[in-house]
């Protein structure tokens, strides 16, 4: 008897069904994410180009529309076809493992990101902790890559990155503690729900110093300009990934951009109200575009895009920080500021200061 796909599905054992459903959801998250990464690279080159009064990529493309749009595809094909070069005396296992760790950390954190109320892969209680723990693993990709490459420049890059990430992770963690205090929960969905309302109700206002510090630390965590000393192409060639070619390099590239998008999305979720709309509730009654003005995933995407734009803007604008200046900023400026502001937030929460903290936790 010929089986239709539907009956085949129904006949599968239940655990397998669960696993398949989860895998399907993961694909639903990963495919748009990887596409975003691809087009983020294009956006970066275009935007920086415009900022510097250049054209940016403007050759690759077909169908006759805006030339340059197929640039990421061309890049991908090029990367795939390049040779994977093994450095002499490199530790082969770790050399391959490093980019995988980097990518896993950057992608794994997306499991707990809520895209809309209830639209999340894993609605875990300790979501915030999970995010912190997983993102802190990303540095291993860089350190292991630097060490396994058996190269001076790579090792220097890895050392720089390790020290930098430790410094900024603390500030980042403290900023998140502020969010946790304000929202009274470690669950990312509930953190967004605690920001229900308009622009004024979002946490960026009461947690303003933490908001700024979180985003800057996020830039430092992802090793992006002006904190990109781990790469420092003018000083140590390309830092930790100097020995990587072909797909190894591509995976690092992917991980870096996925981490950027993650930080941008997290900033939007925790400080800019996630999927909430800046317009009042009455705006949903507007004809035609009412749905768009109400809360929804598009707002999260917009806010994320805004922060991604900031990333690119920074890169085009600021010169690279010197290593000791980075350390000073992290340890001597950010950490004290976050600690002081934690105290302020705690007092505000205890005093139930409206409009943010007057609802029962």
């Amino acid at each position, binding site marked *: 008897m010929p089986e239709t796909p539907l009956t085949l599905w129904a006949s599968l054992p239940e*655990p397998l069904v669960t696993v398949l459903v989860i895998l399907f959801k993961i694909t639903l998250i990963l495919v748009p994410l990887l596409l975003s990464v691809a087009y983020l690279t294009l956006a970066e080159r275009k935007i920086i180009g415009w900022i510097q009064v250049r054209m940016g990529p403007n050759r690759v493309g077909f169908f006759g529309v805006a030339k340059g749009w197929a640039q990421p595809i061309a890049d991908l094909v090029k990367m795939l076809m390049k040779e994977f070069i093994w450095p002499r005396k490199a530790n082969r296992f770790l050399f391959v493992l490093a980019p995988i760790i980097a990518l896993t950390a950057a992608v794994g954190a997306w499991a707990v990101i809520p895209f809309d109320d209830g639209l999340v892969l894993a609605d875990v*209680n*300790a979501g915030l*902790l999970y995010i*912190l*723990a997983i993102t802190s693993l990303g540095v291993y990709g860089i350190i292991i890559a630097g060490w396994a490459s058996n190269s001076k420049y790579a090792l220097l890059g890895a050392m720089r990155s*390790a020290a930098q990430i430790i410094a900024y992770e*603390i500030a980042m963690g403290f900023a998140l503690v502020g969010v946790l205090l304000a929202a009274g929960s*470690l669950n990312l969905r509930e953190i967004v729900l605690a920001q229900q309302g308009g622009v004024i109700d979002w946490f960026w206002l009461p947690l303003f110093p933490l908001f700024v510090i979180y985003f800057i630390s996020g830039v430092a965590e992802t090793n992006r300009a002006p904190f990109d000393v781990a790469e420092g192409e003018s000083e140590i060639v390309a830092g930790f990934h100097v020995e990587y070619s072909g797909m190894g390099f591509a995976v690092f590239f992917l991980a870096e951009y996925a981490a950027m998008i993650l930080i941008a999305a997290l900033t939007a979720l925790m400080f800019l109200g996630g999927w909430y709309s800046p317009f009042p509730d009455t705006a949903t009654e507007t004809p035609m575009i009412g749905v768009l003005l109400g809360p929804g995933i598009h707002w999260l995407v917009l806010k994320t895009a805004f922060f991604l734009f900031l990333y690119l803007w920074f890169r085009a604008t600021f010169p690279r920080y010197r290593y000791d200046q980075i350390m000073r900023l992290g340890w001597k400026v950010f950490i004290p500021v976050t600690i002081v502001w934690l105290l302020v937030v705690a007092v505000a929460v205890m005093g139930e200061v409206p409009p943010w903290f007057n609802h029962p936790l």
Partner: protein
Amino acid sequence: MIEQLFFYGFSAILIFAGVMVITARNSVHAALFLVLAFCTSAALWLLLEAEFLAMTLVLVYVGAVMVLFLFVVMMLDVNIAPLREGFIRYLPVGILVTTLIAVELAMTVGARRFGLDIMPAPVRQGPEYSNTETLGLALYTDYLYPFEIAAVILLVAMVAAIVLTMRRRQGVKHQKPEQQVTVRREDRVKLVKM
């Protein structure tokens, strides 16, 4: 059933990683195996629904402590050979002591005294149960005093680290960023009429 499978899987990796930590010839490899051991023990804690401890283990030990460890280990050019010189000489004593302790432990801390019939597994809590909240409540009420002392111990560690490493060298040119940013044009540029 699946849970047990996970448990034995993670335990096997944990034991393997633990053995490798002390037998690995390369200190960087040893440190990386320690990372693996931390990650697997975090997974074991997750199986026990102790998600806060699991996450904190990864966050603190894997994410921060071991990174610094690797930082130091990679910088040091440790020659392994002299470290292993006494290995054979002390091996018999080491094996003897280890076996003795292992036998003692096996005799005392076994299923006979800590089996599931004597010490039942903790009750499974529902999805609403927050391990973090419970821990927080316990730490800040019943265990306030030990918690504060633990904080003081960390303070001592910080003071000790600073006092043992910080030295004010004479004649070192320091940058003062606050002066750098307040500098004005008149301080640096002097226009001379030619």
